[in-house]
């Protein structure tokens, strides 16, 4: 295992220490491992928190700050955080008008957030949870764990954070989060596996001429393993199932998010973006906003994901609103 770490058991703690050292103007870290916006709690403002396993950086800690998250709860690498963290985060950001929990749809995340929400409500803090499940690689069903929460989470955190910053109430903020969830879909692929520090070896083996289509963000294998293909072919494999969902149509304006999995250089992401743009033009869909970079990752995995979000004036305005976090910043 080749990593710039000291001890797998201390990696997340040391990462947070580094983040605070670098971004002390934006964030602070409280026990037990919660990244909190430096000026939280803000009385009268709805608190917005999220969390999940570590190894997806900059998500979620890198999105804590003005106009986005009020707190993030990082678990061990690829392991959802514990209820104590979400409880501490909820307390720390409660401005008296309620707290939104943005939860990615993984059994562990959902159960741990649920436990925390119960405890916070028992303390009299109003909590609403919205679950993000945008990964079209997973066939949805009432009888399964359902779809994974992936790229749409980043977009939801930005948009919802802007609404909360502007003073929207909990019901409005939660409604916007569901709106993003309903209008966003994602699909990802991997060229390589990644290595969980505590595990010490790659999560899966893969041949030099193979790739995984339909992966999540935890180094897990995807829906199918196929022969390596060109960037254009791969982009087709990612965009087609998203469009097949039938929520993006001719004349629509979308936000296109081309995300790197951690080990893929920007050079390649722009080649993919170029093809996404070409495919959507062909369908009469225009990209009015975009995000290209590694924002929701699987450690050092090489690969990418594409997320499309249908935009209207409200979502566009909230996306454009000022944001100032370690990983996303504009308008300020």
């Amino acid at each position: 295992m080749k990593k710039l770490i000291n001890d797998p058991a201390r990696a997340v703690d040391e990462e947070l220490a580094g983040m605070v050292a670098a971004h002390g103007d934006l964030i602070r870290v409280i026990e037990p491992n919660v990244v909190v916006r430096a000026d939280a709690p803000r009385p009268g403002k709805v608190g917005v928190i999220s969390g999940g396993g570590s190894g997806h950086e900059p998500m979620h800690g890198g999105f804590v700050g003005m106009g986005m998250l009020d707190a993030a709860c990082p678990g061990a690498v690829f392991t959802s955080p514990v209820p104590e963290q979400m409880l501490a985060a909820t307390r720390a950001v409660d401005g008296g008008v309620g707290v939104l929990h943005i939860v990615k749809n993984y059994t562990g995340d959902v159960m741990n957030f649920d436990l925390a929400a119960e405890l916070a409500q028992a303390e009299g803090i109003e909590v609403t949870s919205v679950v993000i499940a945008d990964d079209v690689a997973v066939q949805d069903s009432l009888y399964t764990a359902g779809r994974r929460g992936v790229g749409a989470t980043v977009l939801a955190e930005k948009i919802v954070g802007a609404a909360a910053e502007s003073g929207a109430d909990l019901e409005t903020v939660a409604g916007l989060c569901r709106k993003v969830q309903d209008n966003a879909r994602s699909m990802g692929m991997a060229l390589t596996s990644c290595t969980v520090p505590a595990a010490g070896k790659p999560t899966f083996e893969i041949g030099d001429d193979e790739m995984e289509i339909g992966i999540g963000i935890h180094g897990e294998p995807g829906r199918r393993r196929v022969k390596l293909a060109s960037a254009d072919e791969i982009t087709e494999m990612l965009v087609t199932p998203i469009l097949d969902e039938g929520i993006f149509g001719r004349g629509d304006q979308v936000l296109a998010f081309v995300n790197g999995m951690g080990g893929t250089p920007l050079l390649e992401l722009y080649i993919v973006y170029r093809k996404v743009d070409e495919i959507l033009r062909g369908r009469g869909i225009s990209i009015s906003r975009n995000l290209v970079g590694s924002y929701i990752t699987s450690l050092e995995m090489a690969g990418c994901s594409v997320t499309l979000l249908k935009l209207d004036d409200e979502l566009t305005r909230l996306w454009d609103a000022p944001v100032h976090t370690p990983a996303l910043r504009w308008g300020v």
Partner: protein
Amino acid sequence: MVIPTDRLAAFVELFAQRLHEAREELTQLDSAIGDADHGINMDRGFSAVNGELAGLRDGAAGALFKKVGMTLISTVGGASGPLYGTFFLRLGTALGDSTEVTPEQLVAALRAGLDGVVARGKAELGDKTMVDAMTPAVVALEEGVGGDLAAALDAAAVAAAEGRDRVTPLVARKGRASYLGERAAGHQDPGATSTTLLFEALRDALRAS
């Protein structure tokens, strides 16, 4: 015949030890159909539990298991944290203040634990989860507890292993393995494997009594 709290503590310690020994294997199983952390998660949780046992050995059975449940919930994370945490919390609630429990009480508590896991995780038999090992084990205990305890505990451990293996050929409908669709078929479930270790530890810890 009754089981004093220190025996129940011995079961918890033995389970912790078996999990530590199986850390790699459980993580391996989880990398095939999950995210390569089940062994790491369980080992992290139960080494924390080990640090908490002092002082609880001669107290109430309920206090012991509640502490185990709370510790797991606050240290494991993932899916297995809340599930095993709930399991032990329910055990604790069921056994209450008594410093020694009858086999019947213990089995009833294990049933309460299983119900807690199902309530929290909504898994059904055949979904390919820990529930597929836990359910037959509890049933075996309920059937055998009237007779020889050692035999009943042995039957439970065997039933857990059989339940674990029965779902190996299946696709998963809960947990991360469900994302793999057909690709999960043929792989042994990590959680069902750790649950089997639990009932084996119970058998080996109580047999001595």
